[in-house]
């Protein structure tokens, strides 16, 4: 899922300092699952915004709502129901949601309520870690299912580098060296020959270095 966390409240208060009617808009997708921007977090932020405005001695009317998703046109269109009832939207969806509102509702002021951090997963409650960087040309079949793009600090294709010590990355001892794990995994599966193959210089255009990416599925566009 996409991982996010709420921005500091003072940062959000600065964004909405001139707004008198604010729509705090959550998303039931990824950000609900990672407890950053679902219904519960919308209630909390709405309350904090009201408190911040009370402290500033300003009147405010805060509407709280949560859409099924903010990354599909049909749900963004449903914002019509609050037409005329807000001066600003604080979206608690990931950056995709904020962009979608900005794209599809050009007359609306929309602000991010969360920092979108990564594509990751949660192996223990309250902890999320990055697993994939959405590079557009997946090589996990060569690396034992472990991603060197997202999980190697240098995104090396022929790792590890010389800095790996006792299975730990040189940037910090808390960070496992994913290339060490890749080696161990491939040895376990008797595929260590794969490690001898030198990965060629990679074309990163699919990873965004060739400009914004777009996926078009002809079989679905009617």
């Amino acid at each position: 899922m996409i991982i996010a966390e709420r921005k500091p409240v003072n940062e959000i208060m600065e964004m909405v300092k001139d707004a008198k009617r604010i729509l705090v808009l959550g998303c039931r997708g990824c950000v609900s699952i990672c407890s950053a921007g679902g219904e519960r977090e919308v209630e909390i932020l709405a309350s904090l915004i009201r408190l911040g405005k009370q402290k500033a001695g300003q009147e405010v009317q805060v509407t709280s709502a949560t859409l099924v998703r903010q990354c599909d046109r049909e749900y963004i269109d449903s914002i019509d129901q609050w037409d005329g009832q807000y001066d600003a939207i604080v979206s608690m969806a990931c950056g995709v949601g904020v962009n979608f509102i900005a794209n599809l509702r050009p007359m609306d002021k929309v602000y991010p309520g969360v920092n979108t951090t990564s594509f990751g997963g949660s192996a223990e409650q309250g902890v999320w870690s990055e697993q994939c960087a959405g590079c557009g040309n997946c090589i996990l079949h060569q690396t034992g299912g472990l991603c060197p793009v997202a999980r190697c600090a240098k995104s090396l294709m022929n790792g590890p580098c010389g800095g790996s010590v006792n299975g730990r990355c040189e940037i910090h001892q808390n960070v496992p060296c994913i290339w060490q794990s890749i080696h161990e995994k491939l040895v376990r599966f008797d595929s260590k020959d794969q490690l001898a193959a030198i990965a060629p210089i990679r074309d990163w255009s699919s990873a965004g270095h060739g400009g914004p990416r777009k996926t078009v599925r002809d079989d679905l566009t009617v």
Partner: protein
Amino acid sequence: MSFTPNIQAYCCHYTSQQTLAEGPEGLKIDGFPANITINRLVCTGKLEVSTMLKAFEDGADGVYVAGCPLDKCHNLMGSQRAAKRVTAIKKALAELGVEPERIEMYHLPRGFHPEFVQAGQEMNERITALGASPFKGDAK
């Protein structure tokens, strides 16, 4: 000018047994401040962040939670969860430029103990010294 703070206390069933047994009159005799409103819960683990924020919205000058000792919660981790939520609110209050000490977590023994009264007195002194909640600014 004397200031009597509005303090909302959220107490679990076990830490607030004393209130039930003694009633408001008995508590007063023990020295529990009359301006503290006790909100009883089955477990502090059930207490939502939004409920505590709402208390500030509704005019509380201070809020505190009284749950079981950290390692002896009747519901295992209820008071640990409550403590984490209180910490999250302290952080948000600080971000809003408000004293984080306006909210506190107490881990108290269950049953009849003077600590319950002491916690109330401590909070009352602290909030009285801090003065009225900055959230009570007059709306322009």
